[in-house]
C-alpha cells in the first residue's frame, strides 16, 4: 500500500513538473518563431492550455497530500486539539465525497464525447482526451483524502492506547 502511494507521489510530482517546463518552453518557442520567421505554431496555445489544465487537476491532488489548499482556517484558533482532529476528519470526508462526485460527472461528459466525437480546434484531437485530466485528477484527490482520513483515525487510536 505504501509502495503504491510512493509511486503515485513520483508520478504526480514528475508529470506536473514536465508539463510546466513544456508549457514554458512552448510559449517561448512560439514567440521566437513568430518574431524571427513570421509564423508561429498554430496548436501551441492549445497545448499550453491543456498542459496547464493537467497541472491544475493532478496538482490539486499534490496539494491535498501536502495539505496546502487555501482555506479560511481561523476557526481552528478557537478549538482544542481533539476538536481540530474531528474537524479534519469531517473536511477530508467532504473532500472524498466531492472528488468522487466530480469524477462521476466528468466521466459522464467523457462518455458523451466518445459517443458524439468532437475535435479540438487546433490540435485536432478528440475532446475527451483533455477532459480525461479531470477524472484523473479528482480520482487521485479521492485517494489522497481517503489516505488522510485513515491517517487521522489511526493517529487518534494510537494516542488512546
Amino acid at each position, binding site marked *: 500500500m505504501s509502495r503504491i502511494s510512493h509511486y503515485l507521489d513520483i508520478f504526480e510530482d514528475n508529470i506536473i513538473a514536465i508539463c510546466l517546463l513544456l508549457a514554458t518552453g512552448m510559449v517561448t518557442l512560439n*514567440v521566437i518563431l513568430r518574431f524571427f520567421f513570421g509564423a508561429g505554431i498554430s496548436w501551441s496555445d492549445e497545448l499550453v*492550455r491543456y498542459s496547464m489544465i493537467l497541472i491544475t487537476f493532478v496538482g490539486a491532488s*499534490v*496539494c491535498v497530500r501536502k495539505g496546502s*489548499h487555501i*482555506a479560511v*482556517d481561523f476557526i481552528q484558533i478557537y478549538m482544542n486539539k481533539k476538536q481540530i482532529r474531528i474537524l479534519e476528519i469531517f*473536511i477530508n470526508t467532504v473532500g472524498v465525497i466531492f472528488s468522487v462526485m*466530480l469524477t462521476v460527472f466528468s466521466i459522464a461528459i467523457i462518455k458523451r464525447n466518445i459517443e458524439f466525437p468532437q475535435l479540438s480546434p487546433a490540435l485536432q484531437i478528440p475532446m475527451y482526451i483533455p477532459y480525461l485530466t479531470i477524472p484523473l485528477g479528482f480520482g487521485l484527490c479521492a485517494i489522497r483524502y481517503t489516505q488522510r482520513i485513515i491517517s487521522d483515525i489511526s493517529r487518534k487510536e494510537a494516542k488512546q492506547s
Partner: protein
Amino acid sequence: MTVFLVIVLFACLLLAVPIFMSLSLSSILALMTFTNIAPEVMAQRYFGGLDKFGLMAMPLFIFGAQIMLEGGIARKLLSWAKTLVSWLPGGTAFTAHFSCMFFGALCGSSPATVAAIGGVMYPELIKEKYDKGFAVGLISSSASVAILIPPSVTMILYGVATGVSIGSLFIAGIGAGIIYTLVMAIYVYWWVIKQGMTRSENFSIMKFFRATFDAIWALGVPIIIMGGIYTGVFTPTEAAGVSTVYAILVSLFVTREMDFKKLYQVAKSSAALCAQVLILTSAAATFGWLLTVARVPQNAANFVLDSGASQLVFLIFVNVIFLIAGMFMDGSGAVTILAPIIHPLGVALGVNPVQLGVIIVANLAIGMITPPLGLNLFVANGITGVSLTRMIPSVVPFFLVSLIALLIITYVPSITLFLPKLVFPGSF
C-alpha cells in the same frame, strides 16, 4: 437560490473547507436543488474556467518568480536597490521598503515578496537594532505593493474574470504602485527621524554604477516584461513565458547558481503552487457562472442604477466591500468571486474599467496585512518568528497610511490612467 448558495458557501468556508471546494460544493448543491441543469455541466465548467490563454500568464509568472529566487537574480536586484537608497537616514529601512517595490516587478505575489525580502532584510534590520515589531510591520506592509506593480497575479485574474485588458491593467498598476510606495515611504521617513537616526553613508555614484552593472541581468526581467507588452511584441502570457526562460538561462549560465537538477526541483514545487491557485480560479469561474444563472449581477446592477448612486458613493462602496473581503479572503479568491459582480456596476456608472481594476487590486493589497486572514502576516510570522500579537499593533500605522494611498488612487484617476493613456492612446 442566491440565499441558499451564500449560506452553504459561508458554512463551508467557516468550517475551514478549502475555498475551491466550498465554492464548487455550494454551486453543485444549488444546481441540483433549484435548476433542471444536469450537474455534469459542472465538470465542463471546471474545464472551461481554465481553458483561457490569458490565464496561463499566472502559472508562468509564478514559475518565473521561483526561478529568480532560487537562481540568485532576486538577490542581485536587492543589492542594487540598496545602493540606491541606503544613503538616506535609516537606510536599511528604506532598502527593505524600496526593494519590495522593485521585487514586485519580478514577481506578482505579495506573500512571495515577504518571503524573499524578509528572509534577507529582516536579519539586517535586527542587526542594526531596529524595533522587532517595526521591522516585521515594515516588511509585511511594503511587500503588499507587489500585486500593484506588474506583473501581478491578482491583475491577471481580474482581467480574466472581467475581460479588461491585462496589458492595460499592468501599465496602470505602475503609477498606483509607485504612489503606494511613496506614501508609505513618507511614514517610514517620519518614523526614522523620530527615532533620531542619521545618515551613515554617502551616496557614491561609482558604487551605484558598479551595482547596476552587477544587477544588469536582473534588470532585464522587468524590461522584457514591460517592454514586450508596451511595444506589442507579445501578450502578457508570452511575456511570462519569455521572462521565465530568460531567468532560467541566466540562472544556469550567468549566475550559475542553478543546475538542471535544481531547475527540475523548482519546476516540481512551482507546479504544485500553480495548481493551488489555478484550481481556485476554475472553482470561482464555476461559481461566477452559477451567479449569472441566478441573475445576481444583473439584479445587483439594476439595484445600484435604480438607487441613483453616484460614482463617488459607488467607489466608497467598492473600497469598503473589498477591504472587508480582504480581511477574510485571499486576493485571488476575492477577485474571482466579486469582480464579475462589481465590474458591470462600475461600467454602468461610467467608472473607467481599468481604474476600477487597479482600485480593487489596491484594496486587496491592503487585505494582505489585515487580520484574521492576512497572508503577508502569516508568511512574515513563519520567516521571522515574531508572533502575530506582537506584529499586529505595529502594522496598524502602516495600514492607516496605506488607506491614504488608497484614497489617492481612488479619487485621483489620472495617477493610474496617465501611463495607459500614453501607451494606448485612443483606447481610453
